[in-house]
């Protein structure tokens, strides 16, 4: 998603988009270590973990807050760039909505939780792979056409697919 957004708005800084797309998980790590959020490992049961309480990093309301907070410093570079970076953060919630099994709260402490639960199906990794290839493919095509970014777009594509392989049911450390 990050590379696709970069291809859509090439003027936006790549690092800010990429950190934006991962920001909710980047926050989730320290929040678990600090005891603010909770997760359990479920070896042998896809996807290998259960997210017991992730309302401060991953709820809809907090996703909007993190989107705005991450986008705000980039407003001076223009509205389009700030909106792109803000959407990069929110896109994490949107994509998680398809994958997570009803553990995405509307706001911290909300009883209502969202998630279609594709992670609990046998084909979740392939579904994500199709999305990864679509996003990276768009980035590759746009990079070749414009020439202002993606000097090594094929390598970037390969790195993202390799990272997805590391997160596969066969290689993931949580399997």
């Amino acid at each position: 998603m990050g590379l696709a957004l970069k291809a859509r708005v090439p003027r936006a800084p790549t690092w800010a988009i990429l950190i934006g797309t991962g920001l909710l998980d980047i926050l989730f790590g320290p929040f678990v270590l600090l005891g603010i959020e909770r997760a359990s490992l479920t070896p042998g049961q896809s996807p290998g973990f259960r997210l017991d309480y992730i309302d401060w990093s991953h709820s809809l309301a907090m996703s909007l807050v993190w989107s705005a907070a991450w986008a705000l410093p980039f407003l001076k570079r223009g509205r389009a760039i700030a909106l792109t970076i803000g959407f990069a953060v929110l896109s994490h919630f949107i994509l998680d909505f398809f994958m997570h099994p009803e553990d995405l709260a509307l706001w911290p402490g909300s009883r209502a939780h969202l998630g279609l639960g594709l992670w609990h199906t046998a084909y979740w990794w392939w579904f994500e792979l199709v999305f990864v290839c679509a996003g990276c493919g768009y980035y590759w095509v746009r990079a070749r056409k414009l020439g202002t970014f993606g000097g090594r777009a094929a390598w970037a594509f390969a790195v993202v697919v390799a990272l997805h392989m590391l997160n596969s049911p066969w290689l993931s450390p949580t399997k």
Partner: protein
Amino acid sequence: MSTTGFALFCLIGFLVPVPLLAWLDRPRRPAVPTAPASAR
């Protein structure tokens, strides 16, 4: 893997690839500077 390891895996997994992907994203050829109007 412990829950702490899982939390670190999420944190590092999203941070480490950023500099590599940003480097791969750089254009191969630097943009050609436009000549100033006085030089045309």
